[in-house]
């Protein structure tokens, strides 16, 4: 066990988690870097295009409007001199008012946002506009003053300034177009650069991604695939599967854990195989023991039926019969414990299961000086579960308690009691042994946890799994005075009736023992004469006509010449066994098939035949003779009831 729990080799080198984190960060940085690059590559050009595009045309538009107004003023100024002398002054004043109404020029701070080449032209145009405005005002002033001879020179200056203004605006406009085109070219160039960079980025990224994929495959994919293959082989039953531990990262640790797990499973499977073999051996032995016990019991009963038997001999035979029945009970319990379990849940009387469990273990109590205090509540409801598995749970708990008790000096007390607690049925098993050590307490219900020094350490774990599967739980009692106490809690069936104090035995209902089998013809088939003959004598003494056969083949031959009412056949016989004989009867004598009883001491086969039409025909060896008579009477009566219902006669 220490090998299983030995520490795994520590991580060395680059772990898978670190590798994954590094790859994630690397990919994130690569993608983020790409996005940042694209943003930066476009940013300058795009901002240049958008920021300037808004201001410059607005400024240009305002200046163009001002230039048009001044151009109109220049035209108006040229109309002053040709006008009538009386109108000249009026025109001059109107021109002056127009010029003063033009408003102020462009604010100087607006030029800062204009590209240099345009700014020179635009600011020059702004200056020319101001000069032109002043020149025109002077021309108007000259007209107002009647100094007409000076006006043409001033208008000439105004014309020159107007032309210069127009030229500068044209230059600005040309630069505006060129500037816009250059910024568009810059943007296009940026776009080209980005496209090229994107292509490179993608190629490099694909290469890096490929490298990362290869790295991940080698570090993660391959080990996972090997693990998957290993798990597939294990699930297919190959517990000898081992993985190569050729790395020191998490996957290496995983492989190491896997190997240890399969090692444990393999050793457990081998141990379990031994247990199964032992169980089969015990089942076989039990069957072989049952037949002698049956013979002993039958002979004893036959002897006791003889009224002439001396008293002393009667006492001895009675003792023989009692011990034979005791042994038979123990064997039947063993067989029941070992037989394959029916997986279907059913209503279970917990008290009955507890009693059956105690029957299996109680042989230890006198020897180990264990005093049993059994208190079973009489009105417990049924619970849903599998009786055989629950019996396994209680046997385990009681056996554990007995094991614990032998480690302390007497008095040794075992207390088992059942009770109803709300909607639950609770069975507690308490002992006054050494109790649960702190070392084991934390992993009490874990697999392989044991403090006994022997055993598998699976008992409590399996017990709790069984009870949990039934919807209950196994826990340690809250209030333990001394020793250990385990509590099995099972949910009561909602619509279940309280369990009867004496539960019915498995199989068909047992009718009262008849006083006579007078006139009933019984074909008794058993290969062991020592069993068959006492039974035959008993049946004859009951008035029955008994035909004996040593196996199924002989019985089949006898059926050609006889018309038995009942066939009682052993399960295991040479040449043709009981079920085979039944099949044959069902084919040849269908009416008789319903009146076939199967005797067997091999309860292990009950499971496989439990769902067949013979399910209620089994009579377990050793059987009391009175019970056998009852079963024979029962099948005859049942057949008679059927015949009456259908109008047929037997």
């Amino acid at each position, binding site marked *: 066990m220490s090998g299983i729990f030995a520490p795994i080799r520590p991580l060395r080198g680059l772990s898978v988690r670190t590798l994954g984190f590094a790859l994630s960060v690397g990919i994130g940085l690569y993608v983020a870097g790409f996005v940042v690059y694209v943003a930066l590559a476009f940013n300058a050009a795009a901002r240049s295009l958008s920021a300037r595009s808004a201001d410059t045309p607005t400024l240009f538009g305002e200046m163009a409007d001002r230039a048009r107004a001044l151009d109109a003023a220049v035209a108006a100024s040229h109309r002053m001199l040709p006008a009538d002398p009386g109108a000249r002054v009026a025109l001059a004043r109107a021109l002056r008012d127009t010029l*003063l109404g033009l408003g*102020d*020029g462009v*604010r*100087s*701070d607006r*030029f*800062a*946002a204009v590209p*240099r080449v345009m*700014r*020179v032209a*635009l*600011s*020059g145009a*702004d*200056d*020319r506009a*101001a*000069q032109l*405005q*002043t*020149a025109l*005002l*002077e021309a*108007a*002033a*000259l007209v*107002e*003053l009647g*100094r007409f001879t*000076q006006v043409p020179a*001033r208008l000439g*200056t105004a014309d020159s300034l107007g032309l*210069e203004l127009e030229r500068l605006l044209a230059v600005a406009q040309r630069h505006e177009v060129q500037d816009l085109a250059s910024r568009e070219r810059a943007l296009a160039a940026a776009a080209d650069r980005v496209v090229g960079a994107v292509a490179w980025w993608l190629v490099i990224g694909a290469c890096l991604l490929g490298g990362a994929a290869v790295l991940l495959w080698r570090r993660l994919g391959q080990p996972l695939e090997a693990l998957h293959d290993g798990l597939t082989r294990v699930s297919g039953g190959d517990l000898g599967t081992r993985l190569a531990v050729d790395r020191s990262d998490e996957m290496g640790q995983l492989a190491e854990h896997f190997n240890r797990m399969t090692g444990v499973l393999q050793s457990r499977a081998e141990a379990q195989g031994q247990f199964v073999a032992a169980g089969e051996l015990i089942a076989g032995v039990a069957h072989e023991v049952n037949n002698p016990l049956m013979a002993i019991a039958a002979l004893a009963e036959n002897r006791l039926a003889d009224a002439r038997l001396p008293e002393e001999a009667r006492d001895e035979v009675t003792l023989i019969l009692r011990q034979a029945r005791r042994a038979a009970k123990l064997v039947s319990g063993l067989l029941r414990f070992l037989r394959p379990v029916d997986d279907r849940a059913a209503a279970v009387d917990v008290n009955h299961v507890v009693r059956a469990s105690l029957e299996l273990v109680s042989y230890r109590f006198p020897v180990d000086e264990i005093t049993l205090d059994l208190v079973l509540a009489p009105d417990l409801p049924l619970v849903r579960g599998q009786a055989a598995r629950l019996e396994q749970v209680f046997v385990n708990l009681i056996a554990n308690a007995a094991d614990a008790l032998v480690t302390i000096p007497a008095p040794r007390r075992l207390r088992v009691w059942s009770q109803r607690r709300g909607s639950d049925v609770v069975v507690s098993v308490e002992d006054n042994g050494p109790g649960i050590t702190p070392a084991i307490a934390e992993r009490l219900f874990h697999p392989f946890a044991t403090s006994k020094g022997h055993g598998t350490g699976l008992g409590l774990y399996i017990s709790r799994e069984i009870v949990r599967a039934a919807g209950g739980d196994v826990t340690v009692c809250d209030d333990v005075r001394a020793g250990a106490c385990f509590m099995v809690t099972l949910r009561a069936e909602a619509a279940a009736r309280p369990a009867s104090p004496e539960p019915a035995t498995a199989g068909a209902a047992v009718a009262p023992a008849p006083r006579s089998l007078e006139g009933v013809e019984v074909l008794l088939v058993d290969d062991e004469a020592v069993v068959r003959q006492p039974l035959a004598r008993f049946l004859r003494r009951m008035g029955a006509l008994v035909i004996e056969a040593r196996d199924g083949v002989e019985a089949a031959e006898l059926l050609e010449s006889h018309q038995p009412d009942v066939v009682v056949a052993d399960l295991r016989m040479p040449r043709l066994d009981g079920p085979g004989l039944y099949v044959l009867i069902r084919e040849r004598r269908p009416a008789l098939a319903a009146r076939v009883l199967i005797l067997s001491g091999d309860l292990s086969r009950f499971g496989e035949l439990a769902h067949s039409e013979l399910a209620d025909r089994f009579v377990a060896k050793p059987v009391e003779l009175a019970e056998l008579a009852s079963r024979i009477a029962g099948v005859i009566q049942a057949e008679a009831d059927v015949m009456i219902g259908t109008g047929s006669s037997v």
Partner: protein
Amino acid sequence: MALAFKVGVTLSGCEGVACRSNVPGIHRAVTGVLRGTPRVPETHGGRAAGRPSPLPVRPTILLMALAAAGCGDARVVEIAYVPGERVVAEVAQETITETFRSGPVIHITTDTAGFGDEADVEVSRANHIVLLPGLVAVVGHAGSRASLASAPVYRDARIPQIVPTGTSRLLRQVGPYTFPLAPDDSVEGAFMARFIAERLGARRVTVFYQNDEYGRGIRDGVTAELARRGVAVLYQSPVDGNSDVATLLDASLGAGRPDVIVAATQAALAGRLMRTGAARLPGVRMVAGDGALLLPALSREAGPAGDSIYCVTFWLRETGDPASRDFVERFRRLSGREPVGSDAMAFDALMLAATAVREVGPDRARVRHYLEALGREVPAPRGVTGALTFRRDRRPALVMVQLRDGVPRRVGFEP
């Protein structure tokens, strides 16, 4: 010569030093840029466009880097002063060197390459200035239009810009990185109008204005206050360097004879207006904005009529506090002339930038925050022109002066 000598010393002396060798871009960028800046012809015959310039031409490209001590100091920071009278930078650098004996070595890089009247020149200049390694703050540009044109560049580069003399109210709207030190044109215009109405008792006024942000701003400030006081504005007209001032003045008389002519122009134009006005309208007086008080240009252009001009200034050298005296003495020594209000404002702006760097370190964001907090969380330092804050409720240091024999004299009129 002294300036050229210092530049030479600084550059040659630092070439082999690690801290400078890793920032050669400072010198290459600035000198290269400034050498490439269009040079303004020093005549009235016209600027790049060939038209006559009414404005005095500033010295051409000059890089001045005055190292206080130790070129190896890794905390060398730059303050750009552009464009302005270089002597102001010399005075400021000398004062910084003497005053800030520890802390970061503060260089003042001076670009005096012409007046940036055209917006594109100022924007280009600013675009190159912002490339200066170690640049923490900019003092400039000169005038409202130039400062306004360049402000978005500094705003986008997150460089604090202290505007020493620009008065346009638009400067307060251009962004959180522009700090105009002078009172805005609405305040100045209102001050002028109040003087016109109260002191001069004028009832009729003619307004001539330069057709840019400065001139229009003063025009708006003056006319608004005059209208409020019931003083008639007979005539308004823009003027520029090419204008026939006599014709415009004659034409204005058609609207009536003014008691006062308002000149929202620079010095030369104001002088021409005054000379022409005095000839046409004997006894007329002129009130001009701060832009006109540039000596000796104003008195030279105005001639004998100069004594009839009243000008607004933000500082007058007769102020007798120790800081002003020290500034005046240094200025006289280095330039050989008397400082005027624009010199004092530029000096204060430079010293304020240096103080900010000293207080919060060479960090643009911290400097900006410091400037913003002046007068609030941070006590306003005392400058030559008064307490230095950028709060709107700052008491304006407005002084009305009258030229007498070419010298500005305080007129007893409080703002």
